[in-house]
């Protein structure tokens, strides 16, 4: 039986962590993710979980501790944001290469400079090439559900990769939302007991070495399996989502189409913006405008074929990026989608909007203006900045 409660995104993630009951959590405080581990630390102290909580002096140490613990076969979680995630960058690819299924609560926040504590996706997008699965959430419910699913996905022998589940700083992390949480024992059943590590540092009968030197001779071969596992993970994500839907009723995929099937114009977005967009789309539909949305839930692995197929019949699509690559050709989501569509025979006209940097508000009028622009997409510049002063 599930129950309906009011939770912020941070509370929802802490709740999921309590139910997952990881063996080790190592973390360092940073706004707006601090609360997740603060609430969790209380669960540890109250004896509600069996977790060893390691309070460290930096995120570099936090991720290093996670790697160490995970290599011993433990189930390991952490949480961070922005500069904290940046400070972990050195260790993130190591976690992936060592095939350690660490699960992270990542609260999307702008990166310095200038100093800013509000939401955009720059921190997470810059971590996209480190071999971590990345799952975005539209609201607290999705964050809670995806965190539970992430344990299964990350630890699946076909995947064995670290996974981050993200929320949007303040917009989701600090806003109270109505969510359904499932019973502790159901979560326990769903994630299937303790982690079953194939190679563990603690197996005295089967000693292993971790983190060796690997030069021109074999480095290449040893990196490729990460790509392979990333590819395999799509299937696993869908399997886990299907089982989750059967048990708990809420459906998830690699992406979600909102009124997309017959849409003539559509946006592509991730995270909390999708909630606002749904309101705008409903309004446009009421006026007879065939508007729709493709919400990306999983950014890594990137569902290229699936998205290309889903967008094939749309006339014009605006990709909304809450981060910039500073490469002069649009944001990360845009370049992925453009490349995904390159081979397609039928494809929409594409536009890119970079918006919401440093927590800049994205509201209904702004989204309406994007749909209006899509009605004459051929006259628009390819890449535009939305909601920025000239």
């Amino acid at each position: 039986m599930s129950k309906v409660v009011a939770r912020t995104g941070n509370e929802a993630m802490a709740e999921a962590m309590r139910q997952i009951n990881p063996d080790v959590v190592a973390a360092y405080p940073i706004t707006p993710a601090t609360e997740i581990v603060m609430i969790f630390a209380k669960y540890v102290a109250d004896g509600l979980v069996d977790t060893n909580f390691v309070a460290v002096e930096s995120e570099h140490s936090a991720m290093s501790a996670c790697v160490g613990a995970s290599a011993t076969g433990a189930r390991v979680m952490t949480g961070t944001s922005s500069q904290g995630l940046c400070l972990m960058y050195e260790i993130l690819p190591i976690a992936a290469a060592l095939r350690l299924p660490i699960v992270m609560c990542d609260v999307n926040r702008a990166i310095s400079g200038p100093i800013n504590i509000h939401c955009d996706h720059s921190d997470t997008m810059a971590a996209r090439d480190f071999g971590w699965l990345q799952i975005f959430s539209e609201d607290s419910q999705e964050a809670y559900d995806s965190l539970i699913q992430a344990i299964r996905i990350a630890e699946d022998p076909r995947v064995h990769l670290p996974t981050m589940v993200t929320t949007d700083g303040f917009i989701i992390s600090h806003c109270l939302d109505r969510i359904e949480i499932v019973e502790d024992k159901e979560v326990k059943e769903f994630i299937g007991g303790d982690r079953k590590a194939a190679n563990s540092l603690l197996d005295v009968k089967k000693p292993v070495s971790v983190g060796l030197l690997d030069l021109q001779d074999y480095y290449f071969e040893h990196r490729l399996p990460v790509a392979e596992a990333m590819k395999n993970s799509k299937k696993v994500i869908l399997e886990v989502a299907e089982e989750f839907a059967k048990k708990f009723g809420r459906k998830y995929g690699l992406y979600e189409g909102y009124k997309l099937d017959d849409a003539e114009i559509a946006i592509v977005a991730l995270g909390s913006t999708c909630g606002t967009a749904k309101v705008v789309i409903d309004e446009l539909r009421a006026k007879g405008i065939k508007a729709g949305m493709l919400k990306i839930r999983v950014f890594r692995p990137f569902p290229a074929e699936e998205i290309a197929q889903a967008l094939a019949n749309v006339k014009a699509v605006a990709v909304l990026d809450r981060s910039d690559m500073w490469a002069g050709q649009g944001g990360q989501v845009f370049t992925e989608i453009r490349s995904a569509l390159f081979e397609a025979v039928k494809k929409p006209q594409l536009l890119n909007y970079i918006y919401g940097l440093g927590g800049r508000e994205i509201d209904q009028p702004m989204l309406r203006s994007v749909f209006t622009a899509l009605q004459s997409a051929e006259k628009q510049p390819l890449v535009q900045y939305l909601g920025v002063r000239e």
Partner: protein
Amino acid sequence: MVKETAWCPGCGNFAILGALQKALAELEIAPQKLVIASGIGQAAKTPHYLPCNFFNGLHGRALPPATAIKAANPELTVIAESGDGDMYGEGGNHFIQTIRRNPDIINIVHNNMVYGLTKGQASPTSQYGMKTPIQVGGVFEEPFNPIVIAVALDAPFVARANAADIEQTKEIIKQAIRHPGYSLIDIFQPCISFNKINTFAWFKEHTYYLDAGYDPRDRQAALAKGLEIDRFPLGVIYRQENRESFNSHHKLTAPLFQSKPDPAKLAALIDSKL
């Protein structure tokens, strides 16, 4: 002066800001000749409330830019200022390496024994047993002792101050600015919102001023003073003028922006390699 700050009313940071303002005014350091490098935290906001040049960098990372600013323009007075979490935790390695490198900068640390900005987790200087929302069972780690570490690394100037005593703190800051090489001033600063143990009263009770007979040139005595933790000694605990500074080692005496290429010197160098 400053009308509005982001600090809680009654925070110890106001007193430190006041002492720093007075010290700078009495030494007649012009705002354009002053740079404060800071990190992230409540203490790191100090330069926001002063007329000065400032470099607000990352959490834990004030010391490397401060060193480099001084190297690029030795005519500037360069202060690196942040909290205990910033300087001793996240930036702990920079703290150690900067003392070894010995740039001519002043390192002011607001030591409130807690992370203020992120709302009350233990910092490296939090005392044994302190309970926080993260350290729910109380801090069990050995508190970081910046004084002993700085003396052990032969820092040219090592002092401890108490924010509440603005006059004394001001005098210590003035001495530190005048002293060649790296200077550390660890200032006890009550965080009234998130540290209910180490309050103004607690710091008063747990500190005393070194008397006139104390010789800060005696390194052994300084180490012994640094190890006193039941009541912390206040004042200049250690000073010496024996170490070569980063600037003098690299013969950095004039601002880089004034340096001009010397073709004769360059030609001689090329000739010497032929």
